[in-house]
């Protein structure tokens, strides 16, 4: 036959979405917050972020090539870069470089590649790296440098989260008076890890992801709403608990809700499942923050719910076409 035709099954067209578009889309969404963190923390932030991203990409390349011995390299699909960015956002800007590299090795090596690489991991790799570092190097991980724009003099090193926990431990609501206003926290004038500072820019990036249909609203909205309601109730019952807006804009809550909990691989597939997952993360975060050993509960809450994701997927099915009718008929 002179002119052979290609034969394949339908559909014969594709919507041109790709893994790269989604991964780099999230990276773009993180850009404003990234630039802000460079402004707030200076050269230290640049070093941490560069180290983290380069180390993640390097370990993904090395493991794929030398341990898994795969021909197809995956470092350009954007997922390792994204893991590096998210890990960097979760670190203080003065962290020693060797600790960052160790964190990247754990994130990519243990968190991702042991399970088989992209799409196979149970836990969010960046969070796995952060939690590993937090447990292994608690001192270095929680000593923050001054935010150059910080107005809360004399409290350098004590983040809003630490203050909130202190207020609960000492049963003294006046400690909370040292908190920056929720507006300051919203704009980014506070202490913390690099990605924990500007809620505004992170939310802007989240809006971009929603617009580009990279994520749906279910996970971020359910987490933030749950925290608002739960923290608000606690605040009403007892003023030693901080006001809900301060709770939402402090620590890594926005970063976690919009960028970490929404990680495709480790979050549930159905909208119903995503809502359950989001509400559970919100509840766990407030519980760990208020009554746990660590001032920040977001990472632990997400990691715990990552583990529940397969279970949620088994029991939460999307609403089938015609299901409503079937149920009505059964009545």
């Amino acid at each position, binding site marked *: 036959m002179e002119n052979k035709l290609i034969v394949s099954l*339908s559909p014969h067209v*594709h919507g041109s*979405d790709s893994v790269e578009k*989604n991964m780099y889309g999230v990276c773009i969404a993180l850009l404003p917050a990234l630039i802000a963190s460079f402004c707030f923390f200076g050269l230290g932030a640049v070093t941490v972020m560069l180290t983290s991203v380069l180390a993640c990409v390097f370990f993904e390349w090395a493991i794929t090539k030398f341990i898994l011995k795969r021909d197809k390299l995956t470092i350009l699909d954007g997922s390792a870069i994204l893991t590096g960015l998210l890990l960097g956002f979760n670190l203080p800007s003065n962290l020693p470089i060797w600790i960052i590299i160790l964190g990247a090795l754990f994130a990519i090596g243990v968190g991702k590649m042991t399970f088989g690489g992209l799409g196979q991991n149970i836990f969010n790799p960046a969070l796995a790296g952060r939690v590993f570092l937090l447990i292994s190097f608690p001192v270095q991980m929680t000593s923050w440098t001054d935010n150059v724009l910080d107005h809360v003099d004399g409290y350098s090193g004590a983040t809003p989260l630490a203050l909130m926990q202190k207020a609960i431990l000492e049963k003294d609501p006046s400690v909370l008076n040292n908190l920056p206003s929720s507006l300051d926290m919203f704009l980014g004038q506070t202490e913390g890890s690099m990605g924990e500072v500007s809620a505004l820019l992170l939310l802007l990036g989240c809006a971009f992801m929603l617009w580009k249909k990279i994520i749906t609203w279910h996970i971020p909205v359910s987490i933030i709403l749950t925290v608002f309601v739960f923290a608000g109730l606690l605040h009403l019952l007892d003023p030693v608990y901080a006001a809900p807006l301060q709770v939402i804009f402090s620590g890594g809550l926005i970063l976690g809700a919009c960028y970490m909990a929404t990680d495709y691989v480790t979050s549930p597939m*159905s909208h119903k499942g995503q809502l359950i997952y989001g509400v559970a993360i919100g509840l766990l975060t407030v519980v760990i923050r208020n009554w746990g050993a660590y001032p920040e509960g977001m990472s632990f809450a997400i990691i715990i719910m990552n583990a529940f994701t397969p279970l949620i997927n088994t029991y939460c099915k*999307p609403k089938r*076409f015609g*299901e409503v009718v079937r149920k009505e008929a059964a009545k």
Partner: protein
Amino acid sequence: MKTFHIGGVHPEENKLSAGSPIREAKLPRQAVFSMFQHIGAPANPVVKRGDQVKVGTLLGEAGGFVSAPIYSSVSGKVSKVDVALDASGLRRMAVTVDVEGDEWEEGIDRTDTLVRLADRPELDGKTIVEKIKQAGIVGMGGATFPTHVKLCPPPGKKAECVIVNAVECEPYLTADHRLMLEKPEEILVGLQLVMKAVGVEKGYIGIENNKPDAIALMAEKANQYPGIEVVPLKVKYPQGGEKQLIDAVIGRQVPAPPALPIDTGAIVQNVGTCFAIYEAVMKNKPLIERIITVTGKSLSLPSNLKARLGTPFQQLIDECGGLPEDTGKVIGGGPMMGKALMSLDVPMTKGSSGLLVMKKDEARRSEPQPCIRCAKCVGACPMGLEPYLLAKVSEQFDWDAAEQNDITSCIECGSCQFTCPSHRTLLDHIRLGKSTVMGIIRSRSAK
């Protein structure tokens, strides 16, 4: 504006031929009539080699109740009654006719005069269904289910309304669109005939709002036809799916199989089918020709052709500028659900709604990447299924899991694969799983 309620995607429309009026294709030199032009039992040939036939002569009689007769669309001499390659890629029983002249059987009204229902007061439901059955009419949207079967609801089920499927949600295809612009009243009379056949007072015509000219024209003409309403629909694929269309137009959802669309009280007929019904009942013309869109970005003359059944696809493409050099794939039907053709030397059939030529670079599939569990397929599935899961369990031959997760509800619309960022071949695997599970269910109920 109304639409269906679960999932859906927005493929590029590419309606290249929307502005080109229907033109008549040339008569073929040889026409091949497959006996497998519909779902159900194949037709049985009733002619033999050497027989003279005319346009409208019966070539094959229906092989059962769920089947349809096949008529000759040309006049000439039967040269072969043997297996021949058809669009499915299989060699199956067909009748080949060498064309001589263009002689028609007596009694077929070939004029353009509109015959209204009021002109034929003697017609009753039973006669209409019988006429449709005799004319060999099948669903012309592509499903090719024999129409008379749909018009005879099983005992205990009652039709409440008729919905005309004028959605044409497949990209590129414009055959139904053009037919509505050029034969609006014939379609309306056809709908009236269906309504009379099943004894209902209410008829809807569902049209997507990317065809505003058709909506306006049909709505204007429908004013004179009591009980018929044009329903504009928001553009979303796969709105032309029978279940999705019923959901969009009357807001009722067909339950999972074995339930049928008739359980919602709706009977859905394609625009082309309505026109064929009009011609069969009012003009005494069996189903021997149809409108087919011949299109593609590389084709020099994308067109809507009125062509005789049995015409080889090669000839239709030649009439639209010939097959371009860099062609990679030719699809029978639209790009979302059509079948890729192995050869162009196969005849068009009752279900051929389109012929789409794709360039080599459009035709290639991308290399699949690992599933990143983004859930976009779950969001796109119009049946509320989990395509990633169905594909995975089918790949693992876990038929129990496939059945438990409702694989048989899949309508094979391709939305999941269309939307998958990892370019995974989801539907390939799901098709395998679905057909295997249906086989298991059949053998279980046979015991």
